[in-house]
Structures are given as structure tokens and as C-alpha cells.
């Protein structure tokens, strides 16, 4: 998989990881459900 290389790559990764569950829901058209235990 290609990796981001620009000056903001690290920040982008950090921000995306903050919303990992939302990203998963958007990637799967809502099939991925949030973990209720957290």
C-alpha cells in the first residue's frame, strides 16, 4: 500500500486514527458498527 509522504502525513494519520471507527463505517457503507465497549 502506498504511504503518504508529505509534510502533513503524520498529522493526517493521527487525525484519521482518532476517527478510526467512523472511517470503518464509511468504508463499509455502515456495515462496520462502533465498538460499544469503549
Amino acid at each position, binding site marked *: 500500500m502506498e504511504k503518504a509522504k*508529505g509534510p502533513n502525513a503524520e498529522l493526517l494519520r493521527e487525525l484519521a486514527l482518532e476517527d478510526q471507527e467512523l472511517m470503518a463505517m464509511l468504508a463499509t457503507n455502515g456495515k462496520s458498527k462502533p465498538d460499544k465497549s469503549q
Partner: protein
Amino acid sequence: MAGELKRVWYPVMEDIIDANITVLDIGGDKHPHRLLLRPEAIQTVIDRMIKVETKGLAYQAAWLMKELVKLHAFDGANHRTAYLVAKMFLRRNGKRLRIARLEDAYLFISRLETKTVEQVQDWIEHGESERSQRRVT
């Protein structure tokens, strides 16, 4: 100094391409990153975003999200990319965008095409509804 204007930080074309690569990587998507348009098309969106600076950061973030989804510059993950770029734009300018209810955020972002810029701005600032607690602080 009181009254001093703070310069607004703007993403560059490379940031938006990197955002798409990042969401595909984080999501473990099978299809690779692929740009469908000339990179200059993305730059045009950024240039037009700068022109609405007087409307404020939340409006600009909303406008950027809408325009990136409409542009459909990538083969996949355009909604996720638009959201991540808007979030980075706000963060770089000292604002934080947080999600309280994942389901509401998912529904809102996945239906961005049906929203006006003002509705997206309102969602960024206050949340879509009383149930949705997304806000900029």
C-alpha cells in the same frame, strides 16, 4: 497584539492526495489510491476556498468538504478524504472537530451531497441535531 489578524493555514494539493492515501491505508481498502483527475483540479478547489475566507473557518471547512465530494477526484474514499482534509484544516487553524455519536456522523458524511454548505457548517459548529453532538471547540 489585540486586533491582529491571524493568517489562515490552507492545505496544498499534496495534503489532499496524502489524505486519500491515508484513509485507504487506515481502512485497509483493497483498491489502491488512484487520482482520476489532473492534480490542478484539486488546486482549483483550494484556490476557490481561499476566496471565501471572510465567511470564517467553519464555513470554509464545510465548503471544502462539499466541493471535494463533488469533485470526486479519487477512485475511492472521497467522502472520507473530504472529512479528513476538513478536520486537518480546522486543526491547523486551532479548532478541534470531535464526534460524539458515530452513527449520526456516518449518516451525515455519507449524505453530504444532499446538504447545503450552510447545513454542513451548522453540523461542524453545533451538530446536525440535538442528538448529534459534533462541535468545534
